[in-house]
């Protein structure tokens, strides 16, 4: 097991800056998720850790050892690719055995090791198949087994679930997390899917335009976003952000509730809300509309759990409240989080 550290890591492609000075330190055995929109540099960062790209500047350390000049095979890492990158001409058995052969493990112990890895993912019965004869979910398991088989110090996963259908993705997510907890190997996981990031990560690194915007637990990222970008990017629907004077006022849709339905006993702020559209989603109702008064004509979304049974009709004004502790403030120009202001 090992930690991964990046110190001021940069990557330039000509004039394009893909990664612009990233400092990270994983904890031992941690599940760290790199989250960001496409083009934010998260995959480039992962590929630098793996050794496929050379950083333009900065240092990479795995297990406290500088690895900038080591080839991928010497970094004690294993990687699962978005495409799974299984060797198409080899059977499942040979795919999983490949890293062991490359390690020059003695021939007699290879089959035992391969079976062990395969049994962890329940693919023992697929050993003689070629990758093209497998379903997406099976391929993903083979890729995981191949990564796991030589017991690496660090796991790198590049959007390994994005090629699975929604249902399979949910169960694969669950399995992946259980499995990581069991083996306790430090894992870095790249995704653009915030649900995946929230569900899997011990900590999440939110990236944008080659820089880290926030590092924190899923709770911290969600409830205490460091800036307006994180607030908008995480959460579905995203945080409501209202322009007011020289700051942005933010609150989550699920905290924006009809007056009198707040659970907490804390102080609340009241907004006059003109509902324009109601979306019934089963567990929730989403209310779209515009505010009146000081925030006139700014769009907001409210998310009412099905336990809130207040009758809401479109094209009607209601009084909605937000608990004051749920109000977040951001500087209008830097978008950084600032202390609470009087409304």
């Amino acid at each position, binding site marked *: 097991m090992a930690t991964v550290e990046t110190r001021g890591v940069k990557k330039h492609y000509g004039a394009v800056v893909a990664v612009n000075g990233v400092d990270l330190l994983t904890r031992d055995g941690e599940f760290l998720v790199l989250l960001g929109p496409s083009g934010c540099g998260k995959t480039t960062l992962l590929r630098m850790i*793996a*050794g*496929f790209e050379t950083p333009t500047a900065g240092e990479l350390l795995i297990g406290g050892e500088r690895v900038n000049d080591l*080839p*991928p*095979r010497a970094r004690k*890492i*294993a*990687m699962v*690719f*978005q*495409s*799974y*990158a*299984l*060797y*198409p*001409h080899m059977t499942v058995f040979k795919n999983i055995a*490949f*890293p062991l*052969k*490359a*390690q020059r493990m003695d021939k007699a112990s290879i089959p035992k090791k391969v079976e062990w890895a395969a049994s962890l993912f329940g693919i023992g019965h697929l050993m003689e198949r070629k990758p*093209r004869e497998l379903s997406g979910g099976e391929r993903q398991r083979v890729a995981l087994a*191949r990564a796991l088989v*030589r017991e690496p110090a660090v796991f790198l996963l590049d959007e390994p679930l994005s090629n699975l259908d929604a249902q399979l993705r949910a169960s694969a997510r669950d399995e992946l997390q259980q499995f990581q907890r069991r083996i306790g190997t430090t894992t870095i996981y790249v995704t653009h899917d915030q649900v995946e990031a929230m569900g899997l990560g011990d900590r999440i690194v939110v990236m944008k335009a080659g820089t880290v915007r926030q590092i924190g637990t899923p709770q911290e990222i969600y409830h205490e976003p460091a800036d307006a970008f994180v607030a908008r990017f995480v959460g579905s629907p995203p945080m409501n952000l209202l322009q007011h004077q020289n700051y942005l006022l933010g609150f989550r849709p699920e905290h924006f509730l009809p007056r009198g339905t707040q659970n907490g006993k804390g102080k609340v702020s009241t907004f006059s809300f003109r509902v324009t559209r109601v979306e019934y989603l089963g567990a929730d109702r989403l209310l779209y509309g515009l505010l009146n008064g000081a925030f006139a004509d700014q769009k907001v979304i409210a998310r009412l759990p099905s336990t809130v049974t207040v009758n809401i009709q479109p094209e009607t004004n209601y009084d909605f409240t937000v608990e004051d502790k749920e109000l977040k403030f951001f500087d209008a120009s830097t978008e950084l989080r600032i202390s609470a202001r009087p409304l």
Partner: protein
Amino acid sequence: MSFRVQTASTANNLTRPLNRRMSIVDSERWLGPFLIGPAILYIVLLIGIPFFMALYYSVSNTTTGGGTLGFVGLRNFSNIIDTPKFQTALKNTFIFALFSQVVILLLSNALALALQKDFRGKGLLRFLMLLPWVAPISIGTIAWLWIFDSTYSVLNWTLRMLGLIQGQGFMWLGLPHLAMGSIIAVHVWRQLPLATVILLAGHSSIPKDIHDAAAVDGAGFWRHFFQVTLPLILPISLVALLFGLIFTFTDMVIIYNLTRGGPYDTTQVLASLAFYTGIAGGDLAEGAAIALFLFPLLLAVAYGFLRIAHRTEIT
């Protein structure tokens, strides 16, 4: 004026009158035959008819002098098989084809691997590499004729300057083995670009992730090449080899320009011998028999290779 009135009345859906006549492009029944027609015509006129004529010539007693077209059975074949000239040519054909293809496969693989990497001037190198293929082969071989010239050979000069030989130097095209070697060298020079381009295409069809996976799985250069890269480019390599083999078995341009089959017919291959016997020598029937001698073998080779390529195809 009436036109204007008409468009005004239908202004919503038409801005100009519809051409109501169907053209050939609209008719599926005629478009296909129309497009493929020229190709079929070309193949029938320039390949099909000559091929069947050659088939008949090889069992006839015809000459370029014309006149007779009598059927003689397999007499032409039995006549040629026993001649030393034919046996040498047959042996040379295999030496020529196999040697040059082995060298081409090795070199084109190395070149393709090198050209996969990113380096300065890669575009220029790719362009230069293609030159032997795009330059007219006659001009190329004339240049080679000078390189191999008995008096002015730049090869001999270089070897002399390096102190490797003394005196006159080698008679590159004057001695049977050297002449065959020279022919193979020029053929390799000429075919290398195409083979490299085909292999390059094969290499670039392998997803980058696969190479990355092999790198992270711990494979060194040789394991990576022999266990990952090579099996994945095998199908396309076989197609390249098939083209190369058939092309080499049937080509005579280099021999015609370099040695004219000499010295003493020691560098004849079947294709050149067929030409010298049938066209230059006037014995059309025997020439056709020589030319067609390897046809069944080539057909079998082509069939076999395509079967293997199909079986190893990876999708």
